[in-house]
């Protein structure tokens, strides 16, 4: 075989002519393949001569490889059995090297069983299967000119026979109908959810919609998790307390919680606040917020104005609050304005007062939407006035 394939061979679709090519400087076959440049400095020396492996020429080596491979498969089977044994015998509460003993046992035995099969098969391929490299000719990805013409002819015949070109009325009305069909496909998804405006208007639960939260005049600020109300005297200067509106812990006369399920989750997701106490001299209250603190106790939304992570890292000395998600930093002593990081707006502040029993309560809801920005948010509006 000289490697000079006749041009008829390759593009016929089979393209599969395993040939040993010694002289690989063949002619370009078919279209699309680049012609070999004429000035190659070194001639293609052709495929290297095949060399025999020890297992090809030495029956002892061959036998040894065979035994090796069988041993790998045998060990794999042992691992498979061990898996079953471990499944029924290793307790769920035992631990080994700090991990669940059962998971370790099952994982190692399964891993061993699989790996040994894999290694065995590859060893078989490398040592015992024939290792002659063979050569296959490529054919260009494109179709031949004849095929192209034949296909085009068929397409135009089809177009002609259907009359799609001659009957624009039929064609365009079909296109129109199919286009209109997009509308049902889109409309069908309308009930994926209500819009913000609908949620706000329906008001199915307290604080519905992006503009509102469950906070309201007189709602107590309570500790999260336990739900106990807080007196100003409970807080020392420098303290930071995670708090919630009392509403999420409230129960009716039968002891059933007022908020459950989605309304509860929504209330938590917007109502979470942090309460901090500082020396009133350190605080620089914002304009119109002079009476929002109680003896230096300030309350801010816990929901980051960046993308909505709850904020929790407090630097006690500097009164800085850091968001653990993207490190936006807010200065609690200066209306929680952003002093670092990707957030653009200050944390909304909840105006505080004390009720007749001496507990901290809200003066009103937040005066601006909490959480991340959205298109309809009027961020130029006042953040202190009640609407």
């Amino acid at each position, binding site marked *: 075989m000289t490697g000079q394939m006749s041009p008829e061979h390759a593009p016929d679709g089979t393209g599969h002519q395993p040939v040993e090519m010694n002289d690989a400087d063949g002619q370009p076959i078919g279209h699309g393949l680049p012609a070999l440049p004429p000035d190659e400095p070194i001639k293609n020396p052709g495929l290297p001569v095949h060399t025999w492996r020890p297992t090809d020429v030495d029956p002892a080596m061959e036998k040894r490889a065979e035994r090796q491979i069988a041993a790998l498969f045998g060990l794999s089977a042992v691992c498979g059995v061990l898996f079953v044994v471990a499944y029924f015998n290793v307790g769920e509460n035992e631990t080994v090297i700090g991990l669940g003993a059962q998971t370790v046992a099952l994982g190692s035995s399964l891993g061993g069983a699989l790996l040994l099969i894999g290694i065995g098969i590859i060893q078989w391929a490398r040592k015992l299967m024939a290792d002659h490299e063979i050569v296959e000719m490529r054919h260009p990805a494109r179709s031949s000119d004849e095929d192209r013409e034949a296909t085009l002819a068929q397409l135009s015949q089809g177009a002609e026979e259907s009359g799609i070109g001659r009957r624009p009325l039929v064609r365009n009305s079909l296109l129109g109908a199919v286009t209109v069909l997009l509308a049902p496909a889109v409309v069908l998804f309308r009930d994926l959810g209500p819009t913000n405006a609908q949620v706000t208007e329906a008001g199915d639960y307290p604080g519905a919609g992006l503009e509102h939260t469950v906070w309201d005049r007189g709602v107590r600020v309570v500790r999260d998790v336990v739900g106990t109300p807080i007196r100003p005297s409970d807080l020392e200067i420098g303290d930071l307390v995670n708090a919630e509106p009392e509403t999420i812990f409230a129960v009716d006369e039968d002891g059933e919680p007022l908020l459950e399920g989605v309304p509860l989750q929504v209330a938590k997701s917007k109502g979470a606040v942090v309460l901090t106490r500082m020396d009133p001299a350190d605080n620089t209250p914002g304009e119109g917020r002079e009476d929002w603190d109680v003896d230096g106790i300030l309350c801010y939304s816990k929901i980051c104005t960046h993308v909505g992570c709850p*904020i929790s890292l407090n630097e006690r000395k500097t009164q800085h609050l850091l968001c653990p998600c993207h490190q936006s930093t807010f200065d609690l002593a200066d209306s929680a304005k952003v002093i670092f990081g990707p957030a653009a707006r200050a944390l909304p502040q909840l105006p505080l007062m004390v009720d007749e029993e001496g507990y901290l309560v809200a003066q009103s809801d937040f005066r601006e939407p909490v959480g991340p920005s959205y298109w*309809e948010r009027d961020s130029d509006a006042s953040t202190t006035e009640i609407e």
Partner: protein
Amino acid sequence: MSIDTSKVADSNTTAATAKKPNRAGAAATWADDRLGLATMMKKNLRKVFPDHWSFMLGEVALWSFVVLLLSGVFLTFWYVPSMGEVHYEGSYDPLRGVEMSEAYASSLKLSFDVRGGLLMRQMHHWAAMLFIAAMMIHLLRVFFTGAHRKPRELNWVIGCLLLLLGTLEGFTGYSLPDDLLSGTGIRAADGFLKASPVVGSYMSFFLFGGEFPGDAIIPRFYTIHVLLIPGLLLALITAHMLLLVYHKHTQWPGPGRTEHNVVGYPMLPVYAAKAGGFFFIVFGVTALMGGLLSINPVWLFGPYDPSKVTAGSQPDWYMGWPDGLLRIMPGWESHIFGHTISWNVMVPILLVPPLMLTILILLPFLESWITGDKRDHHLLQRPRNAPTRTAVMVSLMTFYGLSWAAGGNDLIAITFDLSINQITYFMRVAVFLGPALAFIITKRWCISLQRKDEEVLLHGYETGIIMRSPEGGYSERHLPISEARAFTMTARDRDPDLAELQSGEDGVDANGLEPKRSPLAGIRRRLQTTMYADNIQKPTAEELEAAHHHAEHEHELQAAMEGVSADGHQFDGHHLVEEETLRGDH
């Protein structure tokens, strides 16, 4: 080529003898009568696949996808995609009695009460990471070796889409346990949606079935995760493989290998055995990882509570780079006519990642537009032989790497006791400077390697033998490299002659007028010049001959000194020294 069969062990060459018709044969006949399998299979059973370790990377991705399908089906038998609230009563003590979603409770059940459940959960998660990592490295291999060129551009596009879908699949997957960490991720995603201009709040309310968090997101993500995206992945992987078979695999240049052939092992038996065996290896490695390496211990995070968060919250690593951009983006926001435009979220999440994906998809098309190369390519290139292309990808990788590192700015600050502010300021500059610097360094590095190749081709390799001339000068002896290696090094295209390439556009036309050039053509010319600038071309036949002639001449000169090396030098390790003694009377 003749095969010397005299050396072959007998047992390995026994020809398969035709057997009497048996049951298997009868079944095959039955099937072929109806399906015509033989015609289809005869073309493919002995199909040739070239061998190289780097071709295994795509296989890792393929097989880890199979592991994902298998382990994922197992998980669906116990996982409950519901946000309905339950009191946990399972066997994990610290959370007993805690209110949580059914999704989280069933994840705990899988972890503690289903034998092998935690193994499968961890295998599934590890396989997902392996899947995405293997796709990324496979993509880099393809691009660095030029395998994205014609006729494989569309397979490149499919690959990019697979990477995108794999990432989304990963995100929806790690959101499903509904633990505190994954819930924080979903909440951030809600923030991203809301930042979209005009439609943001609508998208958020539609996705969550109302106000965040609602009770719809987990079941919806579940359908997307187990049906929609896997279906698309499966379809695209099938297309990817079919195109691979149709185009035939690319191969490295070497003796006997040309643009017109493909040299390697036949699918049956060697390639099928190697690939099939490799499936078991990937599967086995995943099982070992799932058994021995803890991942995503959701029981430690607790159920999702929208008012809580843990420090050091981070997404899975493949979502890290947009998260990093989000961290280093300055807090820019515009307030116009009662609307809020959050550049601080839009730029790093809604603009840059789609832009990067678009650039990635367009790379093969941009390259062929710049070079004007419309030929088919089946021989791979070494990265050094396409310096600009290599530099472009390293530049993109640098951008990716820096953004990714920025996603861990808090961990870097804690680990190295640095100021998080300074890291962030540094990163803001580094994501622009780093890629530019990486481009220049990579390009120069590639060209240096090309120079080294040229030197080896022309002057041979360094033998380590130092020769001293009678005049007292020292020189290292070079010997020519083997013909096979020399051929492999020269089996690459010469870059086109720029002057010739651009003369057509440049010259005056028949009327002696300058042809009008569109601004785009001008850009293309400049890019073309940059593409090839300073590249080293392989030597011509004449150059090679001249160099060899020169070498022979030198060897002749040195021949006089052969065997009369300076005293002691006969022990240089290059000669037999049994009979040698030191001259003189030492």
